Structures are given as structure tokens and as C-alpha cells.
């Protein structure tokens, strides 16, 4: 089982590789990827250095081109595909139909992964991308239960990748316009959810408040754990009750499910967090490397170690971790 880790900068890429990532995924400094945040990501020079560092250690680099190009900016995306092919990126992660088609026709040797932003939740969709574009791996949206993941994996020869740890989209990826509704920039077309320019934190008499384009997302009492200022993790009032109406701030942590993933035919586990720093990447990658190695050594006797749980728990958003959709009660 492959370990796929995030990098928002060259030091993060080195941290991932030094701590045991098989693949590192990254994006360019523009709207061609879904973590289009100010100052984050790679320019050509950093990409070349990252590729050299990874390839010297026989690890692989994935370029995420997982947003949706538009007429006026089509060339930005195709230039990025060309750059990936020219610089020897090992695979690209793509969501858009026409961009997959472009990459498949223009660079037949370039390996294609279907992005989670492609919203493919069933094997008919995944097989379609394989037949049309030769996609070899698909990342599943974080909405399927274990049994449903297994159903998909049993009915396709495309490798299945699932999210293992990190920030949790409670909405189907590629099917969420909440951020665009509140603050304009769209995850699908601009690559940003709750962008910094729309976010305001303010310490008030009532507590620490987070606002998105002026809309109050949450208010934290002193000492209460905070969350990303995304709409889906705020507290709102519904029918007289004020609570986390959509989802508690929580991070996905599926380390205990690794043996189940193996049985279900999952081929790769992805760590979320290109927006996070090299310290996070190093610590989380190290834990998952140890866990996957332990799984490989003795799959029947795999038990998550206490120090792994503690190390991962430190990085969780809000106050808890969840198995997400993999567990039926959550749904």
C-alpha cells in the first residue's frame, strides 16, 4: 500500500520523503490546483529541485491539476500538463474531462490519476475514465463507507486511493459551492475554499470570532479549540438549537482501518494538508510510514500503537478525530 503525502513547499517535500512517503503530491502557484493559497506551492525552479530530490531517493512526485479550466484560461492548465510531461513528473492528478483528454492525447506516456475533485463515487464512472483516458488510479471522495469502497475496488482494475488522515471535507468534493456562495472564489474554478482575503479573526468580548466575508462562522469561548473558518465547520442555529449544524471540527483519522483497507483492495492512502507546514508533514508521514510497515509485516496482528494515536491527535482540527464516512454511524 502506497503512502501519498502532501507538500506545499520544497522543505515540506523533503520532510515527506525523509520520513517515508512513497509519493509526494504538490501543486503550482496558481489556480490549476485546489490549494491555491497566497504564497503556497511550487514554481518551476522549486518543482525541478523537488523532482531531483525525490528521484534521487527513488520516490515519486505527483502534480495536482485538479481544478476546472475555463475558456479564457485554458492554456494555463495545458501549459501545466506540458510542464509535468517535460520535467518528468511521475503522474498528474486531474479532475476535468477535457484536461484528461488533452493529457492523454498530447502526452500518452504521462500517467493519469483521477482527482477526488472528479466526484467519482461509483465504478461505472471510474471505468469510464479508464476506458477513455487510460486513468490508472482514482482517489475516492470522502463519502463512501468501507463496504462501498470495497464494491468500487472489486469492480475496476483502476487502483483505488482513499484519504487516510487530515482535514475532512464533509461535502462531496467537486460538488460544493458553499465557499463560492459566501465569498466568491470557487473551489472548482479558482482552487480555494475559504480564502484568506475573505477570512477575519477578531477577539471580542463574546469570544474569538471567525467571519467569512462578514458572515459569522463561529465564536469560541476562551480555551475552546478552534477550527478552520469553513462554513461546514461553523456553529449555527437551526430550529431553535445552536450547534455544529453540518459537522464538528474534526480531522479524519483512519489508521485503525488499515487492515480493512488492505482487505477491500485499496492501493494507496493519502494524507491531506498541502497548506500545512513541514513540521506537520514530517510528523504525520513518520507515523503513517511506521503503520504501513507494521501492516505489511504482520497484517493479521496489526494494532495501532498508542504513540501513533497521540502524535496524530496533536494535529487534529477541533477536539476530535473521526473515521468519517468509512464508519456507518457517522453517516
Amino acid at each position, binding site marked *: 500500500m502506497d503512502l501519498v503525502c502532501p507538500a506545499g513547499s520544497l522543505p515540506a517535500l523533503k520532510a515527506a520523503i525523509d520520513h517515508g512517503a512513497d509519493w509526494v503530491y504538490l501543486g503550482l502557484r496558481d489556480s490549476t490546483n485546489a490549494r491555491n493559497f497566497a504564497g503556497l506551492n511550487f514554481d518551476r525552479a522549486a518543482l525541478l529541485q523537488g523532482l531531483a530530490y525525490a528521484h534521487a531517493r527513488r520516490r515519486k512526485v505527483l502534480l495536482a491539476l485538479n481544478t476546472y479550466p475555463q475558456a479564457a484560461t*485554458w492554456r494555463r492548465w495545458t501549459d501545466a500538463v506540458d510542464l509535468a510531461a517535460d520535467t518528468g513528473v511521475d503522474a498528474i492528478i486531474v479532475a476535468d474531462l477535457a484536461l484528461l483528454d488533452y493529457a492523454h492525447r498530447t502526452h500518452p506516456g504521462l500517467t493519469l490519476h483521477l482527482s477526488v475533485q472528479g*466526484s467519482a463515487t461509483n465504478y461505472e464512472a471510474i471505468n469510464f475514465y479508464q476506458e477513455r483516458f487510460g486513468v490508472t488510479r482514482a482517489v475516492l471522495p470522502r463519502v463512501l463507507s468501507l463496504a462501498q469502497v470495497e464494491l468500487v475496488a472489486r469492480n475496476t482494475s483502476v487502483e483505488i486511493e482513499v484519504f487516510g488522515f487530515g482535514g475532512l471535507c464533509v461535502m462531496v468534493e467537486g460538488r460544493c459551492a458553499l465557499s463560492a456562495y459566501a465569498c*466568491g472564489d470557487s473551489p472548482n474554478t479558482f482552487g480555494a475554499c475559504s480564502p484568506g482575503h475573505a477570512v477575519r479573526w477578531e477577539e471580542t468580548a463574546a469570544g474569538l470570532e471567525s467571519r467569512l466575508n462578514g458572515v459569522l462562522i463561529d465564536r469560541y469561548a476562551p480555551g475552546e479549540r478552534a477550527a478552520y473558518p469553513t462554513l461546514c465547520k461553523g456553529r449555527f442555529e437551526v430550529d431553535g438549537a445552536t450547534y455544529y449544524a453540518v459537522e464538528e471540527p474534526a480531522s479524519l483519522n483512519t489508521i485503525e482501518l488499515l487492515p480493512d483497507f488492505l482487505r477491500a483492495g485499496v492501493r494507496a492512502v493519502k494524507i491531506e494538508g498541502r497548506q500545512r507546514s513541514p513540521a506537520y508533514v514530517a510528523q504525520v508521514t513518520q507515523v503513517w510510514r511506521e503503520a504501513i510497515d507494521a501492516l505489511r509485516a504482520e497484517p493479521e496482528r496489526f494494532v495501532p500503537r498508542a504513540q501513533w494515536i497521540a502524535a496524530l491527535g496533536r494535529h487534529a482540527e477541533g477536539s476530535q478525530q473521526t473515521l468519517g464516512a468509512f464508519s456507518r454511524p457517522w453517516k
Partner: protein
Amino acid sequence: MTRETERGRLKLALGPLLYYWPRTAVMQFYAGIAESAADIVYLGEVVCSRRHEMRFEDWVEVGDLLAAHGKEVVFSTQPVTESEGDLKLVRRVVQNARWRVEANDMGAVSLLAGATNWVAGPYLNLYSPQSLAMIAAMGATRWVAPVEVTQGIARGVLAERPAGMEAEVFAHGRLPLAYSARCFTARRYNLQKESCAYRCLEHPDGMLLKTREGLPFLVLNGVQTQSAKCYSLVPDLASVRATGIDVLRVSPQSAGTVETLAMLRALCDGASSGALPETDTCDGFWHGRPGLELAA
């Protein structure tokens, strides 16, 4: 000759019913729609596969009624499938021999490829002329824009319009903004989705979500999240026409839908003004602004 006369009269479509109503209420609603100004009616359950008041055969019956009244009937597939049961329903909708199909995920597109005259639904994420050309080559003859589409993006998509391709935009109603695996209605009642007691039935227009400052913000509708404001392109009809849009989509509500369709028909046909039931409307997406803004 203006663009408008080139492209002809704007058609009105009624989008699929997004809420969960008792079967008799659904039947009554569509009996009213049969007499309404809608030219096109999209049918089927597109939010939650647990909703079962309307069986497949019931939708067929509604479709027959609407077709007998001269409506174009389109059967919509589920945007999010999870189980083999969900896929079976997609196959059944795709293979229905009576009506056009609106494909809302690539699984449905795959099952339709080679067929002709189907509708590329708003959830396929088609934002470029290149992707529109591909979907046209697979047999689609109508593009329903993603709800967040801007005028600029729509113009770009339609700059190289494939022959015979129509364009439709979401023009009136609460915006379907997001889908989840979790049910937010069940969550409000501390129920699990699997044993939700079908509480959506109690909320014919969803449940209003307000900020802690009392601002109406979103609407929870089972696994779907909608805007609390009514999105309306009524102030934007001139630019909608100029962009080359052929069809305006109205989303069903428990009250006022027939009246909204009638008013839109009159406005499209040249009436200078008219009062729609909603007062707090928004149209930000069309202007490349936050969706909740009123920019026109």
C-alpha cells in the same frame, strides 16, 4: 438581427423536486405543473436514495401526465451514488425508453455514451468549450451550467457551441450548493441517516439555518445544503439572453412555483415588470461575485 431572435424564445424548465413531500402532495404539485407555463419538466429523486414516497413507476405516471400536456419530460439521475442499489436506479433511468435523460455523474454519462439527445446535468462540472465539445460528441444536446456559473464562464463555454447544443442556467429558486454523505436533517434530530424516520417529510421547504447573529444563511435539506436566499436571474434577463442561454431553470418550492413560472414567462415575452413572491433575492454568481450578493 439580434442574438435573441437568432436563438428564439427562451424556454422555461422546472428542475427536479429537491424536497421530500408525501406522494399525494407530489402528484398534486405536478398536476398543477401540467397546466403551468413550464416547457420542460425534470423528474426524479436527485437528493436522497432513502426517499421512497415516489417509486419509479410513480414518476413514469407523472411523466405521462406532463407529456400529455405537451411538456418535454426529462428524467434526472442521482448526482451522488453510493451503493449498488443507487447504480441500479441510474441504469433504470438511463434505459427508460420514454424520455430524455439528464446525466448528473460520469457513471450515467458512461451508460449513456453512444445514445443521443441526452442532457448534461449541472453536476458534471463542464466549465469549458473543450469539455462541452467532448460531451456533445458523446450525444448530449443540452448543457445545464453548474449553479455557480458566471456570465463570463458561460460565454466562454458557448463561444464554440456544438451544432444543436442548447444551454440552460439555474435562474430561480434556492441554490443547491452542496451534497454530502451525511444527513443534516437527521443530525438536527440526533438520528442516524440509516434510521432517520424520514424527518424531511416535516420540512416541505427544508430547514432554515441562521448564523448566531440571526442572519438567514442556508437551508438544510437532508444530505443537500441550499442557499437561504432565492437566487433569481430576473434582473439579468437581458445579459442571460445575450450570453446565448436558451432555457431558464426554476426550482420547485412548496408554494408559488406555478405563479413564478407564469411571471417569468410574461417577463421573457416582454412584460416590463412583475412582482415575484420572493423579496430577498441574490444573483452574485452570474456576476462573478459571492453567490449571496445581489449584483444586478
